[in-house]
């Protein structure tokens, strides 16, 4: 049985206690909403996409340490990044969470950085949904922004 320290790395707890990019953005920024029906976690992602780049991102909602810190780390990782690169990162993150999407190995050119700390979540399968929630919501936001 994996221990709590595998799940709750220090950097995760840090993002949980001091979440980055909290807040909302006004339209024309897009807003995407995600929730985990199982545990009631809710997340809102606000995206400002300018010339193919995520120029600003804000996160609202509430949930457990894993979903909130994953959202916070995600926001830090994608802010200022080109959409193409962010899509690759989403894919790479889900791959790390062992979520298969039938495509081949993900593009590893985008470094995971701090996100690597979430790797331990894989040992706690019920928490994978928590970690991925923000990322699915981000993907939905990108769809909205490009629509």
């Amino acid at each position, binding site marked *: *049985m994996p221990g709590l320290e595998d799940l709750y790395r220090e950097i995760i707890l840090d993002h949980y206690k001091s979440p980055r990019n909290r807040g909302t953005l006004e339209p024309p920024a897009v807003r995407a909403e995600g929730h985990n029906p*199982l*545990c009631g*976690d809710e997340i809102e992602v606000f995206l400002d996409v300018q010339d193919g780049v995520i120029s600003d991102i804000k996160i609202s909602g*509430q*949930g457990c*340490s894993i979903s909130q810190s994953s959202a916070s780390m995600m926001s830090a990782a994608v802010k200022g990044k080109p959409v193409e690169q962010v899509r690759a990162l989403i894919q790479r993150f889900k791959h790390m969470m062992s979520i298969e999407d039938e495509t081949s190995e993900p593009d590893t050119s985008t470094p995971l950085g701090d996100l690597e700390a979430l790797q331990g979540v894989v040992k706690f399968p019920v928490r994978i949904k928590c970690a991925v929630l923000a990322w699915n919501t981000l993907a939905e936001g990108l769809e909205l922004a490009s629509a």
Partner: protein
Amino acid sequence: MTLNFSSLRADFPVLAEHINGKPLVYLDSANSSQKPNAVIDAMTSFLQHSYAPTNRSAYTLAAHATDLYEGARSKVASFINAPHAHEVVFTKNATEALNLVVRTWGSANLSAGDVIVLTHMEHHANIVPWQMLAAERGCEIRWVPLTSDGLLDLSNIDVLLSGASVFSFTAMSNVLGTINPVKELCALAHKHGAIAVVDGCQSVPHMMTDVQDFDADFLAFSSHKMVGPSGIGILWGRESLLEEIPPFLGGGNMIADVKLDGFTCAELPGKFEAGTQPITEAVGLGAAVDYLSAIGMNNIREHERDLAQYALHALTSRFGRDIVIHGSNDINQRGATFSFAFKDVHPHDVSQVLDQHNVCVRAGHHCAKPLMRLLGANATVRASFYLYNTTSEVDALCDALEDAGDFFTL
């Protein structure tokens, strides 16, 4: 009370499981209960020696299986003091039982503008089916509010029930543990000409049930929460209502005749039991009813009252203002199910730490989102106790909570 409840633990093999070297502290019985050997053995032995289809074939093996199946129905009927065994309909779970009421009685009786009364403490199973029908038909749903200590607020009930066709409510909240005054609520419903539908999922496993004393019209509950198997639920209905409402699912067993241009229905209870039934599960349920009856439902209630008292005291004295227990702290108004907030640690994180101690609780919305919104929470931690739990498991819960507090408040 002369029964030694801690010796009952030996009847439940799962409770002897160790995970990671730690004994199991199973505090999720409001979700689903563990099963005693009496139930497991009844099912195993049936599968090994007696399995056969019921109510169809006539050979000795099938006749015997039918006797066991119908015997389970009779046991359930006496367990809830139903006037007739044929008023007991087996379903797949309580959710199907409630949907059955909505889709048969509701479809036949509700039209635009008709009023359905629910309460703010209902489980989704007693909300969503009504919402589906209400949306189709244009019915109005009214909600009985709660007091600040999690009881039904009946101060305005006559206004809410006036003109209502049905009052459907839980006998005990699966989140707050609140025990509702079922008999009084049935009388209120009838006074206003409404039928009374009782969701007994949380009450039937934990205390005496008497549908005649309640004067209820329908009662739904689940086998798996009362030490019985999964895969079977129960709907009891007043004979006259069951006779007059249309059938639910169509198929074998529920018909008297089928022609190319239509069908006629079988007698009760067949009318509501389409297709091959949960046969082994009914046998297991019969054994569960025997098991609970032998202990005595009043003894079980007594034991859980003691546990609830102990738990309330232990949690509040150890954690003071760090814990917020939702619902009433009057032990006569509640069962041994506790939903709470702990410090500012998210319930999911609390349950994760508790799991390291092999303390099994549920974190989430407990299928009662409208109530969660009222509590202002997205989720709570819920520890729910049953006949096999002990005060030392309350202590184990407290110890594990202490650890969770330490871990998240560095």
